[in-house]
């Protein structure tokens, strides 16, 4: 049995320890906001937080995060009031939306490390892929959220 806290709730899961965290989240826990994109940690659609750090859950075994605290997109806020989510709304960032959970989770973690990011910081640190090309609005939303979180 693997003990895990997800979005503040404690679970004891009967899963094999090599199972990628992504599938535990999606299939065991039924939280489908976190997406499968590539399975090889290249696209970031599966991004969640483990003890506050952004990780690509397709490439982490659930056994390696036993007893840790996981946050998924569903757990970022109860009502989408997180400043990054609000910025995403204000800028109308998503198009198809498939990558956006991962984009938001990556952005939240990034802003913790870079609360006043420059465009160069964004370029260097945010590597989530978006096939629709929402990058311009992601950038605007990150700047908007950073300004909002400063006050």
């Amino acid at each position, binding site marked *: 049995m693997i003990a895990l806290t997800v979005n503040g709730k404690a679970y004891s899961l009967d899963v094999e320890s090599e199972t990628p965290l992504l599938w535990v989240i999606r299939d065991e826990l039924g939280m*489908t*906001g976190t997406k*499968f994109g590539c399975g090889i940690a290249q696209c970031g659609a599966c991004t969640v937080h483990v003890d506050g750090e952004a990780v690509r859950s397709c490439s982490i075994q659930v056994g390696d995060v036993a007893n840790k605290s996981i946050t998924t997109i569903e757990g970022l806020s109860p009502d989408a009031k997180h400043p990054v989510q609000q910025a995403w*709304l204000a800028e109308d*960032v998503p198009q*198809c*939306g*498939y990558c956006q959970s991962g984009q938001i989770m990556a952005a939240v973690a990034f802003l913790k490390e870079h609360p006043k990011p420059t465009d160069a910081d964004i370029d260097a640190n945010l590597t989530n892929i978006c096939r*629709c090309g929402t990058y311009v609005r992601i950038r605007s939303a990150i700047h908007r959220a950073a300004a909002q979180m400063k006050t």
Partner: protein
Amino acid sequence: MNQVIKTSITRRHFVVASASAAGGLAISVAFPGLADAASIGAQAWGPESTPNEVNAFLAIDPDGSILIRSPHQEMGQGAITALPMIVAEELECDWSKVKVEYASPARNLREKNVYGEMTTVGSRGVRTSWQMLLQAGASARERLITAGAQRWNVSPSDCEASNSKIIHKATGRSFDYGALAADAANIKLDKEPAIRTPDQFKLIGKRLARLDTPLKINGSAKFAIDTVVPNMVYAAVSA
């Protein structure tokens, strides 16, 4: 929570749905600035027909909530917002009371293309369907006007539609759409109304918040990979 997607046709397209157990109208209300937004219902498409239909494109409940059906799919291009807007343009309704869902392909087959050409391709959604959607909204509006006029025993030309109300111009008395929808559904117009020309547009051309955005920033929008049906099994190609 798992949703059973009741459909006889498998779709590979993006499916927009809310995970809200309460019925899906609540999504837009939680966001400041979106208090006047319409919303997407609990499941991307509902039963093929519903009570309170005024026509195949829209149903109005007694409480005034309006369900508008989009004949094309949302894939991030804005269809599920734009196409209902076209219906609402003619309908003269309160946009905040609007809930949208997809039209049923099965119903389209059975009712001889009542929704027209339903493929979503080539940037052709608005271009293909705009006249049909304006006509659906205009027809519903005129039947609501006629229903109100009949109640007051006046001529429809003495009445007008505005913001989900039918108003008797001379006296200012009014009915909400919800009160008239059942009657309107049974009215046959002698002549279908002409649709508006672009210079007359009031809603089309306004930048409204997209209805799918709230579902895409909190993980609740459902995609094909998120589909769950009873007794579902999974397959993978072995190397």
